[in-house]
């Protein structure tokens, strides 16, 4: 049944929308907005990890770049929310385009660790040398212009806006992974040399994927700073990389739907169960071990096969 749902694009998107609407109106709207944004982040990350087969341990960098790109523009230049979000995406994509030149040439462990190291560098830059424009440790409080009903101060509007963005991103990513390009990504994941001998410049396509992934994560970052009306260093903290990796893993890597399921599952646990779990990180660690050893296909991966 789940496999069939996934084949049908409209049904998938409809299901995602319905799930979040029901969830939001039975619990709390602002909280589910956080969930939605996080799911966008997971989708961006999973494009690299699940679809292309490269684990990045530093994608908080691109979330942070999006958040600060958006936040700094709003703070210093113009409070137009749409331009700010666009600036966030462009900052992250630009950064990915710059760093990707180096990063994409590595693979495996070096890829993961280089990303982590660059994330550290980014976090340091934001905290210290650039503190005049980033607000350093205090971060920036943001204000966004409203235009009639387009009011980012209103949590209901923010919810629907983020949901719409999520659906749009999911739609585009679904198209992307089911296009010839998506097929190529699968091929690169399995055997890059072989893909090259089909005439593809695999380095270029990996680079493009890295930029797309960075842009999607940047979008998630921009939405975060719009949603929170501030941005601070926690949005670029390297130690938080584990959240997105964990989400991709429990949801089921390599599937757009899996990213949504994983993101929602992780946020649900961390928001609602964390209050009852005294040692949160210990719990997270044990859960990670469990998933890494026994449950690698993730929730959606198993549901789809059943």
């Amino acid at each position: 049944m789940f496999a069939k749902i996934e084949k049908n694009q409209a049904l998938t998107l409809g299901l995602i929308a319905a799930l979040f609407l029901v969830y939001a109106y039975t619990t709390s709207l602002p909280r589910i907005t956080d969930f939605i944004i996080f799911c966008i982040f997971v989708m961006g990350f999973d494009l690299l990890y699940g679809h292309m087969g490269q684990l990045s341990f530093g994608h908080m960098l691109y979330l942070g770049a999006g958040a600060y790109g958006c936040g700094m523009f709003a703070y210093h230049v113009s409070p137009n929310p749409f331009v700010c979000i666009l600036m966030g995406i462009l900052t992250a994509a630009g950064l990915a385009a710059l760093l990707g030149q180096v990063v994409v040439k590595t693979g495996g462990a070096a890829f993961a660790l280089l990303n982590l190291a660059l994330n550290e560098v980014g976090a340091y830059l934001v905290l210290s040398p650039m503190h005049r424009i980033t607000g350093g440790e205090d971060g920036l409080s943001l204000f966004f212009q409203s235009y009639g009903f387009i009011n980012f101060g209103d949590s209901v509007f923010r919810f629907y806006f983020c949901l719409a963005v999520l659906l749009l991103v999911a739609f585009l990513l679904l198209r992307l992974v089911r296009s010839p390009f998506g097929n190529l990504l699968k091929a690169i994941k399995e055997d890059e040399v072989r893909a090259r001998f089909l005439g593809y410049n695999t380095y270029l396509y990996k680079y493009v994927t890295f930029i797309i992934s960075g842009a999607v994560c940047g979008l998630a970052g921009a939405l975060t700073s719009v949603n929170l009306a501030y941005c601070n260093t926690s949005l670029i903290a390297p130690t938080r990389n584990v959240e997105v990796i964990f989400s991709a893993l429990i949801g089921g890597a390599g599937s757009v739907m899996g990213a949504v399921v994983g993101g929602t599952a992780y946020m649900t646990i961390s928001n609602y169960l964390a209050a009852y779990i005294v040692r949160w990180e210990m719990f997270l660690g044990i859960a990670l071990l469990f998933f890494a050893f026994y449950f690698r296909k993730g929730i959606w991966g198993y549901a789809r096969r059943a």
Partner: protein
Amino acid sequence: MINLIQSLLYGLTIGGVLYIISVGLSLTFGAMGIVNFSHGLVYAVGAYAVYTVAKLLGAGYLLGLVAAIVVSIPLSYLIERLVIRRLYGQAIDYAIIATYAVLLIGADSLRWVYGASPLPISDPVGVLWTFGGLQMPAFRLIIIILSGLIFIGLNLFFKKTLVGKIVVAGLQDREAVRSLGIKVERHFAIVFVIGSALAALGGALYAPLSTLDPYMGFEILILCFAVVIVGGMGNLTGTTIAAFALGMVHSLTAVYIVSSAADAAVYVVMAAVLIFRPIEA
């Protein structure tokens, strides 16, 4: 000039500590193809062991060092047995995730016991060594000497002992060693424990130069990964050179640019190295 010599000596200190910690990391990397985040946990445990013994029990720093090593042995044995051994031949991402999970569990346990706030340890020697205009805490000199001794000791270990030779051979061709009837994994486990004990020692040595917090392992670990990547995974000579070279970068940046940029400078060097010598692993 004096300033330069002094910062070079500081660089040697950091390089020495990086070397002591990175050796184990590099071996697990090279011999088993595993990125071992839990190494950072052992490092932190070493530092906390010193804190417990030296400061809480008041038994002195030297006894603390011994305690750090003693504690690390059963801990790393358990990690090897329960986690690392199951990751042989698996995709690298699961190794990263699983060992990171161990780091999380361990760091949270440390926080549980000791609290989250940073804990200081004072310089155990407390003597300032002066020579001309040069000023240097004697403790830092001890670290340099100790790392030199460990370097010599490890080289002797790999050249002279049977276990060392098995590991050297196994780094090159694990299957061929097994086909002689030698249980390679068991010997790697010994070396894993030795590498972990060194990490604990590194934590114990570095603790007085910084402060303790449950997540201290994470920060230093990324520096050590940089060392291992720059030096070549599983390449012991490369690791040694890279540790001291990056230690210099760290210290010179701290003195001549700004101290908070030191870590970042190391990563930039690592990225630069990767531009010229891409690594697929």
